[in-house]
């Protein structure tokens, strides 16, 4: 009980009314964490200063959800979704909630750093002026084509800035990459769209409007493309209150969080997705009557059944379900695309939609709308393109590498040899906010602000019917001595002079943003408009962005889909070994969540494991191999080998094992370092036709180690699996 609190105050307080008095309480030792306050006044029942709320954009992934951040006394307290933003309509995912643990993470890069020697741990703090000088030198002392920018999938404004710079000066166009994009096989999706609809674009799947959804490996409730909006779509599908409850079937070889929600979970042999899709197409069109369209004519359902391990009756039943429904929708994604025949799978599954002819109809497939200030569809680099960059680095064609918003040394499979390639790059400059693996290798680290301290915007690539440009603004003043990368580049360009200076004729980042937004000021059908740019930008920040008011999704031109032929061949699997290997992105950690303690403490939706990596294995298989829960096994692929404890997982094929991607950092702060392993290390250099990594296209061996590492799980082995309850 604090000294300054007298009994009279207490009695005064006691009059405040039942609600408050109901918890007037006694004294006790004051908390060791917060300002000492009389326990009489539990903060829950008092005003502790006024809060201010700022609209900005979430940077945990590239989807571009709008956030409203509550700040109090200059501290960011809580993030909520921005209810106005058409993409997420006021909702957030777990990572959006935990972004504050990134902002106030104890392990951030606090100052611009110069590394004493490449790869060494020792660094020295620089002044920002010196830092900007260093960037300027790097720009002007090298041939433009020797300068490369490697950027993350967010933020877009910086990408635009660098693109402009590149265009104007002849530098290499910036390359964007992100592990999420890699595991989403975005290149494959857009290529498939191009082949089928004649237009490269990210298909938009209107799950909410559908009656029946067949998902071939698409993990759209986890990290896929735009999880929040797809989750909303799923809720729409299941919205029993307003319409008849839609059915959902998932085809995959390892039950994902998404698969867990399916009414029917079809376990098929990896690589047979295309075959199954086409077989269902054929059976469905048989049910529909009339001639079998060319697209499905060259598959034999019986053959498909035997190859995929799905019974023919099951296929017929599914075909019935698909053909019988008004709004049936088939989605390709996830591991199904990350195989040697990924493109074929994507095309086959998209073609299946022709059965219900849902193209451009509610509950069907659209082409995602381009963002307001976007002219053409852009996609992140495929693994193959990354490999090309790596090759250029090996060949010494790259002298300076700028890295922002991406951590290739962790996100890119080791087998792509990025680590080896950087040795041939004379200068690496990282703009990392956190001391990640790449930053640790960089010669300079010029830390960017955290997303919540930054200006900017992000184009919504997919997930919303309206074109959306989510706006970002600082919700708190920078906590450390960091500086916006855009400002650094602008300043450096001025310093470098010449074409550089001309390319970026701006005072600072904000002025650049204004130049980019100017075109929208009085555009038709906009959510906001203003006479002068300052007012417009004020609105822009206040509303958390700018969006068109009407649906601008493209209608796929699917005229001759049914008349094309599709390859039904199965995928090829690299490496010998008895197990198919399925790496999947941890739904809670994704690629960059591992350094946020509360994300680490979130139970994985399927296994409830916290703080670690595991290997999922079918109970039968485990039994045959004499492996139990928490036994550490060695997973051996052609590329590498890893050790991780086993989680005996009831919903995975006996011939398949799976591992979550997200842990296994060697840098990146106290909560991430030396925790778990990174399954990307196991992946070999194999691509599908679209150039995406065939991350699910490998076979691996399992070896026992005799070690044990108890996994930290929220669930009870006794209660959920009956393990340790005593024999019946």
């Amino acid at each position, binding site marked *: 009980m604090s000294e300054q609190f007298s009994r009279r105050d207490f009695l005064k307080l*006691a009059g405040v009314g*039942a609600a408050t*008095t109901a918890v007037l309480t006694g004294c006790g030792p004051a908390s060791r964490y917060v300002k000492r306050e009389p326990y009489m006044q539990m903060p829950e029942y008092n005003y502790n200063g006024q809060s201010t709320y700022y609209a900005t954009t979430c940077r945990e992934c590239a989807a571009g959800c709008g956030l409203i951040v509550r700040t109090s006394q200059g501290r960011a307290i809580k993030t909520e979704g921005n209810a106005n933003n058409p993409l997420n309509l006021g909702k957030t995912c777990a990572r959006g909630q935990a972004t504050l643990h990134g902002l106030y993470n104890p392990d951030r890069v606090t100052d611009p750093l110069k590394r004493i020697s490449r790869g060494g741990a020792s660094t020295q703090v620089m002044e920002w002026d010196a830092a900007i000088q260093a960037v300027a030198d790097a720009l002007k002392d090298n041939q433009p084509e020797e300068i490369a920018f490697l950027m993350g999938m967010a933020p877009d404004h910086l990408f635009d800035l660098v693109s402009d710079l590149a265009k104007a000066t002849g530098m290499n166009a910036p390359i964007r990459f992100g592990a999420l994009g890699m595991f989403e096989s975005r290149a494959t999706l857009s290529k498939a769209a191009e082949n089928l609809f004649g237009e490269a674009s990210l298909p938009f799947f209107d799950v909410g409007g559908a009656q029946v959804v067949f998902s071939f490996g698409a993990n759209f409730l986890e990290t896929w493309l735009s999880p929040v909006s797809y989750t909303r779509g799923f809720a729409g599908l299941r919205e029993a209150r307003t319409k008849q409850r839609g059915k959902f079937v998932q085809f995959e070889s390892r039950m994902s969080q998404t698969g867990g929600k399916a009414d029917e979970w079809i376990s098929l042999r990896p690589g047979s997705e295309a075959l199954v899709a086409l077989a269902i197409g054929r059976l469905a069109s048989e049910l529909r009557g009339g001639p079998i369209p060319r697209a499905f004519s060259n598959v034999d359902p019986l053959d498909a059944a035997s190859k995929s391990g799905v019974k023919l009756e099951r296929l017929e039943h599914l075909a019935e379900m698909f053909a019988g429904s008004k709004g049936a929708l088939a989605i390709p994604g996830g591991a199904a695309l990350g195989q040697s025949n990924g493109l074929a799978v994507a095309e086959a599954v998209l073609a299946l939609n022709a059965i219900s002819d849902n193209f451009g109809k509610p509950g069907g497939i659209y082409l995602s709308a381009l963002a307001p200030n976007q002219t053409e569809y852009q996609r992140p680099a495929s693994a193959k393109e990354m490999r090309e960059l790596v090759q250029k680095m090996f060949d010494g064609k790259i002298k300076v590498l700028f890295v922002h918003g991406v951590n290739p040394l962790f996100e890119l499979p080791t087998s792509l040899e990025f680590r080896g390639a950087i040795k041939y790059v004379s200068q690496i400059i990282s703009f990392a906010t956190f001391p990640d693996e790449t930053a640790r290798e960089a010669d300079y680290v010029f830390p960017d602000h955290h997303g919540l301290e930054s200006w900017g915007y992000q184009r919504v690539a997919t997930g919303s019917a309206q074109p959306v440009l989510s706006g970002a603004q600082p919700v708190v003043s920078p906590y450390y001595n960091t500086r916006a990368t855009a400002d650094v580049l602008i300043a450096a360009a001025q310093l470098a002079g010449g074409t550089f200076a001309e390319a970026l004729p701006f005072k600072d980042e904000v002025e650049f943003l204004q130049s980019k937004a100017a075109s929208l000021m009085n555009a038709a059908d906009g959510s906001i408009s203003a006479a002068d740019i300052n007012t417009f930008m004020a609105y822009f920040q206040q509303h958390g962005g700018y969006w068109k008011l009407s649906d601008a999704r493209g209608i796929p031109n699917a005229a001759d889909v049914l008349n094309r032929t599709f390859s039904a061949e199965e995928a090829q699997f690299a490496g010998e070994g008895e197990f198919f290997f399925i790496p999947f992105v941890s739904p809670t950690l994704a690629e960059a969540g591992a350094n946020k303690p509360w994300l680490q403490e979130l139970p994985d939706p399927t296994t409830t494991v916290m703080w670690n990596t595991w290997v999922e294995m079918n109970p039968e298989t485990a039994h045959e191999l004499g492996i139990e829960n928490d036994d550490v096994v060695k997973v051996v692929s052609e590329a590498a080998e890893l050790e991780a404890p086993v989680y005996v997982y009831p919903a995975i094929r006996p011939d398949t094992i799976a591992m979550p991607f997200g842990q296994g950092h060697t840098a990146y702060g106290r909560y991430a370092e030396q925790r778990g392993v990174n399954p990307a290390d196991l992946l070999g250099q194999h691509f599908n036709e679209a150039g995406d990594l065939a991350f699910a296209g490998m076979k691996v061996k399992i070896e026992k180690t005799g070690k044990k590492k108890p996994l930290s799980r929220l669930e009870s082995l006794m209660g959920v699996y009956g393990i340790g309850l005593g024999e019946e």
Partner: protein
Amino acid sequence: MAVFADLEPAADAIEHLRSIGVHDDCMNVISGIPVTEAMLGRPSQWTNVPRIALGGAALGFLGGFFLAYVTPYLYPYPIQVGTQAFVPGPPTVVVLFELTMLGMLLATFLGVFLDSLFPNYRPMKYVPEVSDGKIAILIECSVMDEKKLTDALNKLGAESVQQAEAQHL
């Protein structure tokens, strides 16, 4: 003071003393074991312990009553737990019982102290042999009778008869 080795002579002595006119109030018996008045043919002793105990029980009960029936109404607001009444039925029985017992037993204990004026470290008339099982009779009498009594007691088999002087125990 006369010290006897055994009950019988002591009892006889007391009888004799009474016959030669020493009043019971002027005698006091000290023994190492609880020798009942009956054994020595002495008038039964008066003790307040039971009454004090009763009083204590009453106080304890009141305390319990206060806790069980009054305190729930002393809060600044009515505290409700799990839809139970402010004054729960059965639990009050427990409270009443425990506090009554506590009061009673404490009082009994104190009763012994009050009645026998414990603790008392002042010098008192006493002979250590008592705790060896001997029985001592303290007689208060005028100096003139002293001689007479001493003889009588000796005749009755007292081990020793002497002027009892108060000593520090």
